[in-house]
């Protein structure tokens, strides 16, 4: 009994922390905590990390899930059951509407105002096309713990010849 109420308090704190960190994230030890979901984890982490649902809005996730047959140049179709299951999970844990750049929901986290703001100041513009990075969507290239939701400064691994300005 005591253990379960402790757990509830813990999850509530996690939820609130996640919300604050995702929206404002002024912290150096940012963690994005996502509830466990086996089907999503398995299906959406085969070709890249399972991107945290908090980083896009529900309309964006709906648009992405509607286009899995031509998903960024690749075929990512899944069966109906898994599709419905994952969409429900993404909608439930989606971030706020502030994540959009325009009236049209963005299909990429890396095109949201939030992402651009978070990554423009300290990084040189040519960083995204360097061969060891390949793409801004390759979070793991710089955030070594991204697959665990760890975006802390301690987990940051930038290319060696790159110095970022401290703020």
């Amino acid at each position, binding site marked *: 009994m005591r253990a379960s109420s402790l757990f509830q308090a813990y999850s509530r704190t996690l939820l609130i922390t996640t919300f604050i960190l995702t929206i404002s994230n002024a912290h150096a030890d940012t963690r994005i905590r996502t509830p466990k979901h086996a089907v999503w984890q398995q299906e959406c982490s085969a070709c890249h990390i399972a991107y945290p649902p908090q980083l896009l809005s529900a309309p964006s996730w709906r648009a992405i899930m509607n286009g899995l047959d031509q998903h960024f140049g690749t*075929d990512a179709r899944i069966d109906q059951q898994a599709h419905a299951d994952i969409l429900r999970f993404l909608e439930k844990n989606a971030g706020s509407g502030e994540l959009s750049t325009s009236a049209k929901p963005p299909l990429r986290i890396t095109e949201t105002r939030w992402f651009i703001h978070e990554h423009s100041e300290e990084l040189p513009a040519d960083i995204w096309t360097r061969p060891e990075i390949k*793409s801004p969507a390759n979070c793991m290239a710089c955030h070594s713990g991204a697959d665990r939701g760890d975006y802390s400064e301690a987990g940051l691994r930038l290319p060696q010849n790159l110095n970022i300005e401290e703020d």
Partner: protein
Amino acid sequence: MRLIITTAITALFSLAAQAETPVDFQNRFATQAQQENPAFTGFSVERGKQWYASTHGREWSCASCHSSNPAAPGQHATTGKVIGPLAPAANPERFTRADKVEKWFKRNCNDVLGRPCTAQEKGDVLSYLLTIR
């Protein structure tokens, strides 16, 4: 009582796992190949090897993501994510689950060839992968 539970768990586990071996897949592809083409004469390792490395006049080959050496880890051509080796000798999980094998042949054949693979092609490439140690 404990025995019953253990037996039940074992039964459940083997049901959930649906484990098969790469050779089971090879046999199934042979049956399908025969149905697709009555003149089917068997699989060819050499043909599978060339097919694996070919871009078929398009952008990608199997090697683009699974490495030119299927015993080594590959890297997704767009995202850079590391993909475990495709050869069963190097990665015992490969070709043990029908749903997984079907799903990825469907997707990857579409990406590489722009059409589904034939049973002949699947059998050739699997025969090649099985020669890799």
